[in-house]
């Protein structure tokens, strides 16, 4: 059986997968699993080719996907109907916000099953922040306050070589649309309207939201397109804050000297918004081992395994029981993430969400290069977003109309 996954835990992904899969193999010695780790980019492209593999391409059995790809895969006819495969399969215990992303839109047929999830939050070093504010929770509640803190931190640490107020959590070291989403949502707009007929991408509010996030790079508060290994981290003292969807608590907790606190992402509008991102598993329709694949999916969803895997890669379980147990296991986590969860949002489960994210990712990649080369202009970004809006509305008319 072949499992295609993403590098959930960076450089340690292969080791973590090997260790998790060894647990499955212990229970199912006759089932052989090979793991292939692909970046999200590669997986995205392969989602459009796996239906017709060439003779030299392998056929995966189970594939890890972000929650908002389900509708696309159903539309393509690539995902197996899990409800048909096992009518007893249910999403009763799944976190409510993640349920809709497992179904074929408009039906209760399950096509992908939740594995784990993460939520965007602001992590900060308490010792660093203490130097610039007496009340971090208050000063970091708004984006304006956050930028002011960044400025103060930079002044305070100006003698520390390679210091940045904000550590870039994006794996590509670039501007990340997923990290920018809370800023956009904070302005009261979303990628698409609730009836999926129009997009807000070209609107003033969307542009302002995106600009709030880009300011981190423009003002050099956060490094972009720099060698990750050459940059300092919060743990090493070369950064003080980080907007990340991973819990980070276990990483920070490992260094007892570093006291890290967690807050909601600073609000660009009236209320803070968090991005709740689920990771699901689906079974390829071409799989010859659907029963074993389903066995693995059920194994991943089991409470003990949810706990084991999510703690390995520093994220959250996708099912209520283990999720709330994890929150309750540490008072600090319960308080911090209790607030964040109440404002958490997901991306819509429609055919074109993945495409919209690709379009915006490309725009941000161009922005990042322009910022580094010192030729970024807001007008150029606005034009790109206007163009993107037209393209998205065309896509909506084709696929969601």
């Amino acid at each position, binding site marked *: 059986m072949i499992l295609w996954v993403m590098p959930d835990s960076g450089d340690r992904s292969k080791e973590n997968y090997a260790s998790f899969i060894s647990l499955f193999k212990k229970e199912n010695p006759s089932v052989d699993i090979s793991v292939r*780790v692909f970046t999200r980019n590669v997986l995205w*492209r392969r989602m459009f080719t796996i239906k017709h593999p060439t003779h*030299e391409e392998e056929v995966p059995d189970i594939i890890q996907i972000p929650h908002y790809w389900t509708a696309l895969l159903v539309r393509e006819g690539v995902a197996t109907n899990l409800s048909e495969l096992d009518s007893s399969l249910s999403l009763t215990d799944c976190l409510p916000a993640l349920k809709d992303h497992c179904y074929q839109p408009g039906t209760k047929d399950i096509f992908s099953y939740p594995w784990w999830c993460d939520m965007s939050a602001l992590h900060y070093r308490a010792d660093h922040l203490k130097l610039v504010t007496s009340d971090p929770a208050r000063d970091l509640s708004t984006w304006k306050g956050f930028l002011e803190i960044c400025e103060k931190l930079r002044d305070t640490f100006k003698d520390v070589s390679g210091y940045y107020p904000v550590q870039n959590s994006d794996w*590509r070291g670039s501007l990340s649309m997923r990290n920018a989403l809370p800023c956009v949502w904070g302005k009261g707009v979303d990628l698409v309207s609730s009836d999926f007929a129009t997009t807000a991408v070209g609107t003033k509010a969307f542009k302002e939201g995106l600009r709030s996030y880009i300011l981190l790079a423009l003002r050099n508060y956060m490094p972009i*397109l720099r060698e990750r290994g050459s940059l300092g981290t919060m743990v090493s003292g070369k950064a003080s804050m980080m907007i990340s969807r991973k819990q980070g608590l276990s990483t920070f907790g490992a260094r007892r000297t570093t006291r890290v606190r967690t807050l909601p992402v600073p609000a660009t509008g009236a209320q803070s918004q968090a991005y709740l991102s689920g990771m699901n598993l689906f079974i390829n329709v071409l799989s010859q081992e659907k029963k074993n694949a389903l066995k693995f999916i059920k194994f991943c969803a089991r409470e003990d395994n949810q706990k084991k895997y999510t703690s390995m890669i520093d994220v959250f379980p996708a099912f209520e029981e283990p999720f709330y147990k994890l929150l309750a296991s540490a008072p600090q986590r319960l308080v911090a993430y209790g607030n964040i969860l109440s404002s958490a949002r997901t991306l819509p489960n429609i055919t074109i969400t993945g495409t919209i994210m690709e379009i915006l990712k490309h725009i941000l990649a161009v922005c990042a*290069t322009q910022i580094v080369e010192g030729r970024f202009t807001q007008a150029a970004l606005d034009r790109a977003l206007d163009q993107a809006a037209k393209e998205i509305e065309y896509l909506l008319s084709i696929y969601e109309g």
Partner: protein
Amino acid sequence: MFDKKSYTLYKFHKHLNQSFQNKRELLECALPVLRNLFKLDRAYFFDWQQERALLSLRMMCKKEYCMDKQEDISVIGEPAFLKQLLQHGVAETTDLGYPALYALIKWQRPSMELRDGEVHTYMQEKVGVIRLERFRKSRVFTPQEKDLIKSLAQEISHNLRNTEIDQTKNQRLNVSTALNDLSTIFASSLRLNDGLELILKGVKKYFRFDRVRLYLTDAYGRKIKSVLGVDVSGEVMHGDVSALGEQESVLLKEVFSSSVTYRSTRSVFYIPLKVQRNKVGFLAFDNILSRRPIGFLDFISLQQFASQMALSIDNTRLFERVQELSNYDELTKLPVRRYFNEKMAEEIYRAKRFNLTLSLMIMDIDWFKQINDTYGHQIGDWALQEVSKVVRSCLRQTDTPCRFGGDEIVIMLPRTNSDEAKLIAARLQELISAITLPTRYTEDKEVHLSISQGIASFPMDADTSDELFEKADKALYITKQNGRGHYAVYREIADQLDQPDGE
């Protein structure tokens, strides 16, 4: 005898001396060997995007395995490093806090481009970088190691070139096999529409586009007549031409007025289908959902395939036109006798097989000879055309009319008994009697047309085609005898035929 460097190079060469499907496979083999040779902690491969001054991380090797990675690093602020790397092929960096050595890899891959409408093949230079890391500060790379790494990088470059050439050959082979398969499918399809559906499905499957659409236009390329498409699910769909609205003319102008050129950034292509000056339509391919660029090889291959496709569609259209001409009467646009007879035989067979009824109606324009003699043949032809228009417009799709000769029109009415046939006859009479000859030819007299009809039905009146004709003709004869402008069913007037003066 080999010295140590030559021996290492030889072993490395031996290790890579195998056939790799692609760059990824080659690197998955080469990086772990480098890691072992130099006792590295990590080895990385980057693509160098020169236009954006970015090193894009693609693969990491750690312990015994390799893993896809993605990270963009700007080298715009590193002129000294770049200079050293480009001049010497290797460069060291201390940014990471431990020894790291970069080695330049340059290779060539076959590429194609369009120049003056011609496809040119050339070798395009690609640049990559490998980075070798040792986490212990004391384990710096010695000059001998640097020299050896530079030579090994050249070996990788050489292998990358061969792998890319093999990959391109395989791609071309796959494409030509696909096109060959598609041509066979098309050639073996009996109906144009079936063939086109199979072709579109095939193109979608082999070339793995998100959508493929075929727009068929009139010969001038001014109007889209139909749209056939295959969407992301692989299902064939008949598109709605009217949905294009005002965009239709813009689209047609764009497709036919400019020559289609390849742009690597585009994920939508239109390829016009033309045969000499005749426009047939155009093909549209897109990857707008997946955002994958369409490869030049695919584009060029499909462009060549499109000419074949255009020719086939044009031939089929021509064949259909010839068929139309041979099956339909030029003046009245009604089917001719041969076509009618074939249909009649089919319908009689069906009626017998499934116990269905069928009626045959023969009609004449009353006083047609007099119209010709009085007002000329031009008016006679006009009258025939007007009557045919009425016949064509008021019959059902299943009915088949035919110009049988002169002013005689025959109508076959499947699944129709004599009572239903009479209703149709009455409707035709009513509509035709409303036709008046143009007054400029009749000296302002109002001359109305009228018709006489004879009807015979299967199976009540006859059970063969010839017999039906005979009985319907007799019924028409009696109608004419009885003063014209009416209709009669054979069964109802059969007794009149037995009388001597009715013969």
